[in-house]
């Protein structure tokens, strides 16, 4: 780590992009999915903290694109292209989509984690972006940090320590 490095933080239902040597991070993913899309050639990466699978769930008029899988990924790809990323070089990694609580409920929203994971995968497929690795499901919260230099996604959980994918 040298002192000129910064960590770009992405909040819940938010997205951003980062260039090496900086890294990008989002904290406390539960049922949300953190999806990283990157272009290794130019050391550029984007991260979205997706909360819901589909913008059809939105009841309001204005849509926060970063919140839904079907709007966050197109937005991220667009922003990366504007920064010079090659669409055909994009790769992805993702983590999250846990089931933090186990209610016996008919309500579909209670199993939102797996639905977020599926929706993100569907979007990546639609953009022909290869998903290289994932750490999804389970019932643990995750904090993730991606380094566009090494293309490693570091995942931290409360009791299982840190690992990279």
């Amino acid at each position: 780590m040298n002192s000129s490095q910064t960590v770009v933080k992405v909040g819940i239902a938010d997205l951003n992009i980062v260039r090496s040597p900086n890294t990008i991070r989002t904290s406390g993913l539960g049922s949300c999915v953190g999806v990283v899309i990157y272009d290794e050639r130019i050391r550029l990466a984007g991260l979205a903290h997706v909360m819901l699978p589909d913008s059809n769930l939105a009841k309001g008029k204005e849509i926060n694109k970063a919140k839904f899988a079907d709007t966050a990924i197109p937005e991220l790809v667009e922003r990366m292209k504007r920064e010079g990323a090659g669409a055909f070089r994009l790769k992805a990694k993702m983590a999250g989509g846990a089931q933090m609580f186990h209610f016996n409920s008919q309500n579909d929203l209670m199993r939102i984690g797996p639905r977020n994971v599926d929706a993100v995968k569907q979007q990546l497929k639609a953009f022909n972006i290869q998903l290289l690795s994932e750490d999804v499901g389970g019932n643990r919260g995750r904090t993730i940090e991606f380094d566009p230099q090494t293309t490693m996604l570091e995942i931290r959980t409360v009791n299982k320590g840190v690992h990279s994918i």
Partner: protein
Amino acid sequence: MSFYKNIKTIHLDILKEIGNIGAGHAATALSSLLNRKIDMKVPDVRVASFDEMIDLAGGAEYVAVSVFLRIDGDAKGSMFFVLPLEQATYFVQKITGDDAFSFTTPPCSELGLSAMQEVGNILSGSYLSALSDFTGLNLYPSVPELSVDMVGAMISFGLIEISQLSDFVIVIDTALKEMDVSANEAIKGHFFLLPDPEAFQIIFRSLGVPLNE
């Protein structure tokens, strides 16, 4: 944000009173459960972004014990009782008499976890029944779920319903602390009440101050 624009000071005051009554009963229940004096802060009602809401509970990565339940019935919503690990450990030790129990060194015994869940059950039940009496609304708590994890991961689950309508949440936050002679003034726990967006009009109407639409 448009959803919140009709909410006036009087409505916020009502929400504060709801926090006051609900958490007041919960604090009394906790006092008798632990045989300790439990003090309650004046409830705080605010419109917060999701990130701000998570910061209120300690920050996305802060590891805490949380009891979460869904409220069903006339007015739906989510409720969290969030405690620091040390405090939850202390509660469980007091109740079970097992001094070896600790949330900071998992795995935790089933008995301890179950005791904590029961504490959450009693407290949230007394919070909700006070609320139900006050508003005349039928409110049914789901069975509480216990989790020990990052606050961001736990709280965000309670924001799912609201997130379909808004990027902001109205949170009724009441902090509880133990009156301690050792002068440790740290706040020990929080009740967060997060009514679903549709619930506000129902609550306000039940108390005779509907929102102007």
